């Protein structure tokens, strides 16, 4: 089956991102297709490469990046939510006149239309949030 995932909360602060990762792994193991993982609200903070969690704990962003690499996942950070919260890729940094960017490998920034598209084209959309 074709599934999409919506993540509404930032990493560490709330378990939503962890649950989404475990769910995504389990779905892939069962042979389902993950069409897209969309990051909205503070969920966009999953996509920063600047995080350095303590070494005895998980690194949520790296887990997403690894999953994306292994399974060719489409990790989409909402552009409007990302602008509010300071998640930038190179293009956005240029457009906004910022002196650097912080997006992590495997994530891309795009519009809310990508969420609606996921809702239309997936068999199920599962929301993880607070």
């Amino acid at each position: 089956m074709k599934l999409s995932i919506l993540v509404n909360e930032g990493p560490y602060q709330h378990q939503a991102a962890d649950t989404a990762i475990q769910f995504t792994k389990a779905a892939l193991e069962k042979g389902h297709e993950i069409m897209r993982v969309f990051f909205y609200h503070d969920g966009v903070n999953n996509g920063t490469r600047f995080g350095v969690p303590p070494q005895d704990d998980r690194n949520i962003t790296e887990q997403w990046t690894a999953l994306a690499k292994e399974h060719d996942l489409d990790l989409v950070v909402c552009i409007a939510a990302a602008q509010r919260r300071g998640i930038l890729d190179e293009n956005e940094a240029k457009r906004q006149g910022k002196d650097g960017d912080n997006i992590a490998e495997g994530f891309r920034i795009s519009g809310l239309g990508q969420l609606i598209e996921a809702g239309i084209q997936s068999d199920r959309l599962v929301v993880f949030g607070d």
Partner: protein
Amino acid sequence: MAMLHTVNKSPFERRSLDSCLRHAVKGSAILLIEDGIYAAIDGTVVAEKIKSAVGDHKVYVLGPDLKARGMGDHKLVDGIETVDYAGFVDLVTEYDKVQSWL
């Protein structure tokens, strides 16, 4: 198949389980995850909520979240089934759609 409802909030602190139970039609399923798992434990002052739901709904609880919180060996309300993440995925695909009571 009808809807799968997920609840991830403590029933002691938030009302999202109450709202879910008032809107879940007969035959729909309820999955307790994250801090929502405390609603599945028997012998608490909120256990009655889930007891009243078990007749009309299939009620599931996410085992990994139970264990994480030290609730793995506590007695669950009768009729609740424990699932792992693979079981969570199966519920999502078995039911027509999912509503998260955030």
